[in-house]
């Protein structure tokens, strides 16, 4: 073991070598390996394709998948949960959320709090889908949805306004069941 003084005895394993290339044995080996290769590819053919035909077929996403944002309203009163505190905008590392708050008028309330978001915009071409806005929000007014098909022809169309975020998104994404 003087050859490898830094290795313990049991760590030295003899390398297993095939026959040398060339000569009759080498030719036989090449032939055998070729047949083995042909068998391997044929086995793949028998297994059939694994491709998912994307626009028609979709892989289901996990429940915690972070897709396009959603803004929420209270189910009973119909008031917006967002109170325009701008914590999401402060938490956003990509700086893609813009909130302009306004005072609620007592007769015509928009949100449940004192103030509401008069402007709520998310620039989805900047968003990195980290989900910090969801964590920062004290009222669970913004959550990440499951929608990821947001390609568009114009960058301006990727700035989502409050109405777009409040609207029920077209659910195009299958959801993975528990344990699937």
């Amino acid at each position, binding site marked *: 073991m003087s050859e490898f003084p830094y290795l313990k005895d049991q760590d030295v394993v003899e390398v297993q070598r095939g026959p040398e290339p060339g000569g009759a044995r080498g*030719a036989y080996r090449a032939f055998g390996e*070729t047949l083995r*290769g*042909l068998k*391997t*590819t*044929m086995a*793949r*053919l028998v*297994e*059939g*394709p*694994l*491709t998912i*035909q994307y626009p028609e077929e979709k892989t289901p996403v996990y429940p915690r998948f972070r897709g396009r944002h959603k803004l929420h309203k209270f189910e009973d009163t119909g008031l917006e949960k967002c109170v325009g505190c701008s914590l999401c905008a402060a938490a956003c590392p990509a700086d893609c959320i813009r909130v302009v708050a306004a005072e609620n008028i007592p007769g015509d309330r928009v949100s449940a709090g004192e103030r509401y978001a008069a402007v709520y915009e998310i620039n989805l071409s900047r968003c990195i889908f980290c989900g910090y806005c969801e964590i920062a929000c004290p009222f669970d007014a913004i959550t990440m949805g499951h929608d990821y098909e947001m390609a568009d022809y114009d960058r301006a169309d990727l700035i989502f306004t409050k109405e777009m975020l409040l609207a029920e998104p077209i659910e195009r994404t299958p959801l993975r069941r528990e344990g699937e």
Partner: protein
Amino acid sequence: MLPLADTGYVEATWVMVVKSLVIFGVIFAILPLMTVLERKLIGRFQHRYGPNRVGPYGILQPLADVGKLLGKEPFRPANAIPTLFILGPLLPVLSGVLALAIIPWGDVQDGVGLYGIDVPIGILYFFAVGSIAFYGLVLGGWASGSKYSFLGAMRSAAQLISYEVSMGLALLGAIMMAGSLSLVDIVHAQGEIWFIVPQAVGFLIFMLAGFAESNRAPFDLVEADAELVQGFMTEYGGMRFGSFLLVEYMEILVVSGIAAAIFLGGWMGPGPSFLDPVWMLAKMLALVLVFIWVRATLPRLRYDQLMSLGWKVLLPLATLNVLVTAVLVVVT
């Protein structure tokens, strides 16, 4: 000089014309389907579907491909040699079509031989015509005025000399057993047993050389996409490129046809005699599947590896095969 009757030109002219048109039409209907078949099968070999968007099951894909190629500009590099550059893709097409003539689709039925011509020098004709294709590759590669094309052309020349000899020797065994060079006679000689059984070595060598003849994997080093950007085809575009591609498939069909006729009993099969061309076609397609299967499996051989395989393995094996066959033919 042979009398004309001996060369098999005994049919009326219009029969010959109709036969040629039918063979040409059928083959050119099969070629595009072969490209889809290959792409779909290669896909399946890799756990994919392959083209399946154009038409039902992607069957119209070649139509879309040809449409695209026809819409391309017939570009020619500034320092190319015009006439030779245009001649490049033409010669292989010519050679492929000429070689199709001798593939036997059936015996003489109702006074009409179901083959283009039954040339008494059959296999020599195949070699003579098949080699013309390489003039196309070398001329095209050289006339492109590009170093990649030139390298590809040189490789194809080197490849030609390393497999052509073994290819000829591989067939020699079958020729000796049949006692004739005519493909029709060779098929007739297989009445008792297909030549693939006594000539298994010859069949393997012929198929290996056939992969090289049609520039297919594992011997596609002539057009090696990764290193030579398609070799001799680099500077070609549009339908000129398309015809190089067409020739590749045509040569696969020709090599499969010759192999099916010489080793797999040609048109022989159960059923009435009008099924003969169908049997021939089925055997050819089975061999085409082998071509695709091998392409999906084997990596490309290096330049020197092809040389040493051709000269050190295939040539001695083929020679030995010929010698043993010769002794056995004389003894029995």
